[in-house]
């Protein structure tokens, strides 16, 4: 079991800076998710931990060791690739056994480990098949099996669920969670899917342009986004954002007086999650219903508020008419520096 520590890790490809001074501390047994858009550097970070990429600067520690210059094979990490990277010429059993065979473990031990992993992942009946004879979900399980069979200190997952369909993805998410509980390993999981990140991670790391934007528990990140990027990235639908101007107790958003819980002076970006837009009779602000999105157990109304748009989460049982005027107010609001994007108190 091992913690992972990254000290000011930088990665450059030629002149392009892919990772910029990343510091990260992952606790032993923690499930951490790296989240960001494609090209944000999250996969590169994972590959730096694995040792598949050499870091340009900085150090990587796994457990008590500085593994910056250690070959991937000696880092005691396992990885599940987005493409699974199953060895196509080997049966499932041999795919699982390969890592142990390479390490010349006794046959009996290998067989036992393969059987354990196969049982754990419910793929025991597939052991004699070739990867080409498996379905996508089965391949995914085999890829995970290959990682867990040798009980490494660190498990790395590179978008492991992205090639699965929605229902299978949901199922595998739970499976991953269960796996983490049983194995008690340190899990590092890369994804671009915020739901995956929110549901799986003990903590999540948001990356953009090679820079860590925020590290924290899903709750923290959702509740107190560290900057505009995080605010926009987390939450669906996206947080409502407006340019705001504050004068003492008055706050104006493009000429409209708004009622914010905690007013402040000066120009800033005001953010309110659709959850926190409350439609109620007698509320101070008025807007016109433009679109209604009913999703069954929840619903969103899109409001035209002067020249601005507001999205509000509403009770799906309440009926709204398009064109109807409604009154609303804000619950919790976030303030961000418009130029730097960082969170204001």
């Amino acid at each position, binding site marked *: 079991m091992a913690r992972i520590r990254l000290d000011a890790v930088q990665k450059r490809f030629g002149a392009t800076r892919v990772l910029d001074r990343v510091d990260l501390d992952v606790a032993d047994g923690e499930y951490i998710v790296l989240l960001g858009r494609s090209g944000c550097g999250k996969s590169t970070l994972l590959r730096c931990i694995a040792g598949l990429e050499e870091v340009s600067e900085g150090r990587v520690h796994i457990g008590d060791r500085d593994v910056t210059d250690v070959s*991937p094979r000696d880092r005691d990490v396992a990885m599940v*690739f987005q493409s699974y*990277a199953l*060895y196509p*010429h080997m049966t499932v059993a041999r795919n699982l056994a390969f*890592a142990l065979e*390479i390490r010349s473990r006794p046959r009996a031990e290998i067989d036992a480990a393969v059987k354990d992993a196969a049982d754990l992942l419910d793929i025991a009946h597939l052991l004699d098949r070739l990867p080409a004879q498996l379905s996508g979900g089965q*391949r995914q399980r085999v890829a995970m099996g290959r990682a867990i069979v040798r009980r490494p200190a660190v498990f790395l997952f590179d978008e492991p669920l992205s090639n699965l369909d929605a229902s299978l993805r949901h199922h595998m998410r739970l499976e991953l969670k269960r796996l983490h509980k049983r194995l008690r390993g340190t899990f590092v999981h890369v994804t671009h899917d915020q739901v995956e990140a929110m549901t799986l991670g003990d903590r999540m790391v948001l990356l953009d342009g090679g820079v860590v934007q925020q590290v924290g528990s899903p709750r923290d990140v959702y509740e107190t986004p560290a900057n505009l990027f995080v605010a926009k990235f987390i939450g669906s639908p996206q947080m409502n954002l407006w340019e705001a101007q504050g004068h003492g107790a008055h706050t104006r958003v493009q000429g409209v007086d708004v009622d914010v819980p905690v007013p402040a002076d000066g120009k800033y970006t005001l953010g309110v999650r659709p959850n926190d837009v409350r439609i109620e009779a007698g509320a101070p602000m008025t807007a016109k219903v433009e679109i209604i999105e009913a999703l069954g157990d929840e619903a969103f109304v899109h409001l035209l508020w002067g020249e601005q748009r507001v999205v509000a989460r509403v009770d799906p049982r309440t009926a709204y008419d398009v064109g109807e005027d409604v009154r609303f107010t804000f619950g919790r609001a976030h303030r961000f520096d418009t130029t730097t994007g960082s969170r204001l108190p």
Partner: protein
Amino acid sequence: MRAPSVPVQVVVHAALIVFTALTLYPILWVVRMSVSPGQGFQSGLSPIPEHVSGEHFRAVMGTVAADGSWLFAHQLLNSIIVSCATAAVGVALATTAAYALSRFRFPGREAGMDAFLVTQMFPSVVVAVPLYVLLDTCGLLDSTVGLVLVYAATSVPFSTFTLKGFFDTLPRELEEAALLDGASRLQTFVRIILPLARPALAVTFLFSFMTAWNEFVLANTLLSDPRAWTLPVVLQRYVDDYGTQWGNFAAGSILVSIPVVVLFFALQRHFVEGLTAGAVKG
């Protein structure tokens, strides 16, 4: 994949049959001369032999050395040893080089690839004598080793390029997975890459084999002892400006072709069945 409509299938089959028949026509003449009595040349329209006799095959295969041993068997064995060794050595040299050229980025890589291509441009007209002197100096005349080294070196550039092209198409994740599984570069190469490269290995093996199998000029220059001869030299013995022994020449040619066809049959399932399927994604 869905098959096309029946008329299209029929047309394609018909075209294939006609083309194959035209392709085989000259070879049928070789067959005809090999089984017709007499050493005279034959030609005409119909390659169906009028009389059939095994005399030429007996003559070609029945040669005996001065000490009474079966010369043809010696020479067939020489050819097989030389060609297989050439293919083995050539492919071994080429696979490692091709893998490095495909995967590693080191100074001189581009220049090395250019240099390999450039060697193919040397016209062979001028190399036989210097090569003779070189091998003579090394004491490798009349030896299988010398001949194999020369052939293998000749075949290496093409094999390297073909294999490199194939390695380029193999997903890198497979090697990374193996690396994380604890395999060294060499283990990854031997246990993951080589088994996957079977189609390309089969093609380059066949190519290297053929480089040696039908080569005459160097074999004739470098080998003086009939017991060291390869079959192309034996075959050329039947050719003479004064009059070629067509019956023996044709029978010998057929005999020389058979192992190639057998080898092709043995190898063809490798280059018609891909293994990369299922390596990545769905």
